[in-house]
């Protein structure tokens, strides 16, 4: 949800960053997304492809890195899992959520070479 507003903010940061370093174009933009952030990568990607037109990020690839959540399995102990599925990937038992991030961060960019 609120992907368009988040996208506008992201593009603002990318524009400032690129202007400071004279990058004419970006090739890749990397985001770190928490599983409780409420951000749907597909929706953000869709908004980004539309809103990036005419900016330094036009045509760049948006890459998501999911911040895993920490769960407790009664059989396997504490495990990290990159989906909020509540089913242990090892034993199939129920998982209890211990911690997941609610944040979204811009963590990396690759400027176009040449």
């Amino acid at each position, binding site marked *: *949800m*609120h992907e368009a*507003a*988040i996208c506008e*903010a*992201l593009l603002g*940061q990318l524009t400032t*960053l690129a202007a*400071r*370093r004279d990058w004419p174009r970006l*090739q*890749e933009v*990397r*985001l*770190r997304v928490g*599983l*409780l*952030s*409420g951000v749907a990568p597909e929706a953000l990607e869709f908004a980004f492809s539309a809103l990036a037109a005419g900016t330094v990020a036009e045509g760049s690839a948006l890459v998501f*890195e999911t911040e895993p959540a920490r769960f407790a399995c009664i059989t396997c102990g504490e495990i990290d899992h990159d989906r*909020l599925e*509540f089913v242990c990937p090892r034993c199939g038992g*129920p*998982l*209890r*959520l*211990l911690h*997941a991030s*609610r*944040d*979204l*961060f*811009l*963590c*990396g*960019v*690759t*400027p176009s*070479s040449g």
Partner: protein
Amino acid sequence: MCRDCGCAESESFRVHSTSSGHAQAPFATADDGWHAHTADDGSHSWHRHGNQGHVQPILDANQRQAESNRTLFNERGIIAFNLVSSPGSGKTTLLRRTLERLHPRIGCAVIVGDLETQADAEALRPTGAPVVQITTGTVCHLDARMVAAALETLPRTGIRLLFIENVGNLVCPASFDLGEAHRIVLLASTEGENKPLKYPPIFNGAEAVVLSKTDLAEPAGFDRVRARAAVAQVAPGAAIFELSSRTGEGLDAWIAHLEALLPGSR
């Protein structure tokens, strides 16, 4: 450790491991924290560490207002609750029963949000507690700014418990802190036991989960044990109440829980 490139987070010692495994100093750094190293193919990948790249300023603005609401609640000795659920889970009816039991013995007030109508506010007014209706138009959640505006119209003294009834929605309200002390999530027995597993962001962090409409549990085939287990998976530590606002079953425990949250009650 930066998950993006494997380099150490220390400000004074930044050495990067490239994909070939060779340690390499970053070739450029700046006061904004961005730095880069050269990959095997000659491309330059820039990144930064920690939490410097927050890209949700809309939510940041909400967070600032929420903190200001929280300060105001504390100054006035108000305990604020954010009541969230799907539409039709029984928030308004539970509030009505709650106010009937507590107000005016313990001063209560309500801020209620809906897309349209004053219906919920009108349903609560006979309790005698001050009620403010926010109609959000098309907005699918309450935000901290709307709550701050509604607070202006409530009495400045005499309120000890403030119930903020959010727009019926299990998605968006999860991202908007209103400044409340406690989030309460309602789950009606007609909704099925798996709701907490389907909507983790709203259930996780709840102070209490109310399994409502227990009078309908049997005809709806609602398995209370499974529902409780689902809540415990997503929101460990949340208190769980099973109640029916219609029959009064379970209301005593809910009211006692609210009273126990008041300062000096334990």
